[in-house]
C-alpha cells in the first residue's frame, strides 16, 4: 500500500504548493488525480517518485520509505514532459528502461504490446521521427514491459488515438487484476469518468474531493460540474459576459 501522510510542500512560507495532503493507494487500485493548472498535481507526483524531497509529512510503500532504492524500482513514472532520448530507436529505449529496472527484455510481450499500439513498423526507427502520439505510446509500452507494482502517469494519455486509448484501458484493467496500482494525473475529465475509478480532485494544494466516480455520479452531478464549482465558473462567466 502506498501511504501519503500529511505532506506539505512550499517554496516560501507564503507560497505553499501542497498543504497537508494525505491519502492511501491500495493494492490493485487505480486513482486519477485531477485539478486546475498549478493546483499541485505534478508536485505531488514528483514527491511520490522522489524527484522532489519531502519537506513535511511522509510517503511510504508498505511501510518502507519511498526514497528507499528497492521501493523506487517498484514505481515506474511516465513524465508529462517529453524527455525521450531522440537518438535512440523505440526498441533501444525499451531496452534502456528494462535495463534501469533490471527486467529482462521479454520479446514476445514487446511484440504484442507494440502491436496493440500500432508501433510495429516504427520500433526500429529513431524516436526523433515519432509523432507526439507515438512518443506517448512508446512510454506506455515501456511501462507495461516492466512488471512492477506501481505505475504513475502524468498526462501521458493525452494525445493518443482511440485505438491506443482503448488498449491502455484494457491493459490497466489487467494490471489492476494482477495487483498493480496506478496513479494517473489528467485534465481529461471525461476519460476519468469513463475509467470509473477513484478520483482525487486537488485545488490550491488541498484535496477537494477523494471519492469513487460512481459516488459522484450518484449525486446527479458529474466531474465537469464539480470542476466548474472548483474554479468559480459562474463568477468567471458573468465577468466574461460583462467585459467581452
Amino acid at each position, binding site marked *: 500500500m502506498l501511504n501519503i501522510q500529511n505532506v506539505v510542500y512550499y*517554496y516560501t512560507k507564503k507560497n505553499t*504548493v501542497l498543504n497537508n495532503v494525505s491519502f492511501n493507494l491500495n493494492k490493485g487500485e487505480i486513482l486519477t488525480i485531477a485539478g486546475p493548472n498549478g493546483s499541485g498535481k*505534478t*508536485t505531488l507526483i*514528483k514527491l511520490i*517518485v*522522489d*524527484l*522532489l524531497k519531502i519537506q513535511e509529512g511522509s510517503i511510504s510503500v508498505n511501510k518502507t520509505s519511498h526514497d528507499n*532504492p528497492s521501493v*523506487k524500482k517498484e514505481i515506474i*513514472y511516465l*513524465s508529462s*514532459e517529453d*524527455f*525521450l*532520448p*531522440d*537518438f*535512440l*530507436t523505440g526498441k*533501444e529505449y525499451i*531496452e*534502456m*528502461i528494462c*535495463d*534501469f529496472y533490471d527486467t529482462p527484455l521479454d520479446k514476445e510481450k514487446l511484440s504484442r504490446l507494440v502491436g496493440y499500439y500500432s508501433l510495429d513498423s516504427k520500433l526500429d*526507427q*529513431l524516436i*526523433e*521521427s515519432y509523432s507526439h502520439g507515438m512518443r506517448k505510446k512508446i512510454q506506455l509500452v515501456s511501462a507495461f514491459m516492466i512488471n512492477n507494482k506501481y505505475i504513475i502517469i502524468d498526462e501521458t494519455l493525452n494525445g493518443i488515438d482511440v485505438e491506443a486509448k482503448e488498449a491502455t484501458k484494457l491493459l490497466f484493467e489487467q494490471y489492476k487484476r494482477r495487483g498493480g496500482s496506478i496513479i494517473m494525473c489528467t485534465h481529461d475529465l471525461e476519460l476519468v469518468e469513463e475509467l470509473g475509478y477513484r478520483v482525487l480532485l486537488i485545488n490550491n494544494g488541498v484535496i477537494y474531493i477523494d471519492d469513487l466516480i460512481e459516488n459522484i455520479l450518484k449525486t446527479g452531478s458529474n466531474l465537469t460540474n464539480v470542476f466548474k464549482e472548483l474554479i468559480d465558473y459562474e463568477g468567471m462567466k458573468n465577468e466574461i459576459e460583462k467585459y467581452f
Partner: protein
Amino acid sequence: MKLKNIFNLQKLYFLFILRRILSAGILKEKIFKVFIFIATVVTITVTTVFLYKFLDDTDVSEQINFMYFIIRMQGVNIIVWTTVIFVFTRIIFLKKGDFLKITNQLPITHNERNSSFIIFELLMSLSIIFLISIAVIIAVVLRTNFHYIPLLICTVFFTSLTGYLLLQLINSIIIYLLNLIKLEKVSALVSILSFIVMLAILYLDIVQSINNINYKIGEFNHWSQFYIELYSNYGFIVTSLIFVIIIFLLLMIILYIPNNFGSEDNHYVKIKKPTKLRLTMFNLYILQISRRVENITTLIIAYFLSISLLILDILNPLYAMFLITTSGLYIYTQTDSIRINYYRFNYSAIKDYINLIISQYLYILITSLPILILGLIINKGNVNLYDTLIIFGQLVLIIILSTLIGILFPVKKDNPFSPFIGFLIIVVISGFISLILQFLNLSKLYNSIVMMILYIFVIYISCLGLKKLKEEFLHEDS
C-alpha cells in the same frame, strides 16, 4: 519582404539573448557579471597599455611611417579574423533551424526569417571583431590623438563589414546553387568546407604577402588594403561613399537571393549499435555523440581540414580534431533526456561528469585514428610523436572547457547563442588569466601548477553546475 518584420525579429532575438542567456544559468549571479565586467576591462586596459608601449616609434627608421604601417598590418589581421569568425559562426549556427522554430507561428516569410538571422549573425560577429580591435584603436588614439581615426575606421569597420558581407554573399550563392540541384541536405556542410578552403588559400596568400614586405620603406601590398588605399588616394569622404555603395549593393544581393529553405528536421542518423552493447549512461552518451548529425558534419569538416593541413604542410593535421570538441558545448543539453532517468535513482554529478568527458574523448580518439594513420603515411614533417601526444593532451583540456561552457550556459530551446556567448565569456576569462600569468612571470613549473589548479577548479564548477541543474530541473513547473 517587410523591413518591419525583420526589425521585430531582431528585437525578438535580442530579448531571447537578454532573458534566456544573459539572465540565466550562472549569468543570473550578480557577482559573476561583475567579475566578467572587471575581467573584460582589465584585459582591454592591459592590452592597450602593452600596445601603447609597442607603438613607440622612436627607434624606428625615419623612412617608415610606423603607425601607418601598423594600421595597414591590422587590415590583414581584420580580414583573417573576419574569415575565422565567419567560419566559426557557420559551425556554431549549424543548429539555427531549431531555434528559428520559435518564429514559426509568426506571420512572416521564410525569406524574412532567414534574412533577419543573417543580419543578427552579422551584428554578433561585428561586435567580436570590434572587441578584438578595441585595444589597438585606443592605443593608436592615445599615441596620436585623433589623427588616425579615419584610417582606423577604414581598416577595422569598413574592411570587416565588407569582408563579412562578401563571405555571406558567397555562402548564399553556394547554398542557393546546392538547393537548385536538390542537394540542400549537404548545403551547410559544403558551404563550410568551401570556406575552409578559402581560409587555407587566404593563409597562403597572406604568408606570401608578408614575405614580400619591404621593411626598409614599410611597403606592403595586399588586397585587404583596398579601403586604406582608397583613403590614402581620395580621402575619407570618397572612401565612405564607396563603402556605403558597396555595402548597400552587397546587402541587396544577399537579401535578393532566395533563402527560403526550410530547416533540416533530422538531428540523428541511425548508426547501428553493437547488439551486445548494454545501454549504460556512458554507452548512451557515446551513441548520442556518434549519431548526432551536427557532430557527423563537424567530423567531415575536421577530416577535410586535416587533409588540407596535411597536403599544404601547414600544421599537424590532428589540430583539425579540435573542431570536434565543439560537441562539448551541446552535450549537456543533448544528453538531458538520459540524465533525468537517473535523477530518480542513483544520480551522481561526478559520475555523470566523468561519463561526459570520457565519452567525448573516446569518440575523438577513435575518430582521430584515420587522420593519425594518414599523417604517418604522408608525413611531410609536421607529424611527430611529441606533437601528437601534446595534441591529445590539449584535446582533453579543451573538452573540459567546452563541457564547462555547455553546463554553465545550457542550450535552452536549441539556440545557437548560448554556446556563442559562453565561448566569448570563457575567452575573456582565459585572456584575463593569461595576462595575470604573464604579469606574475612565473617559472614553467609554477605556471603548470597554476594551470592545474585552474583546471581542478573548472572540474569542480562543472560538477557543481550539474548538481544545480538537477535541482533546477526538479523544481521546474512544479
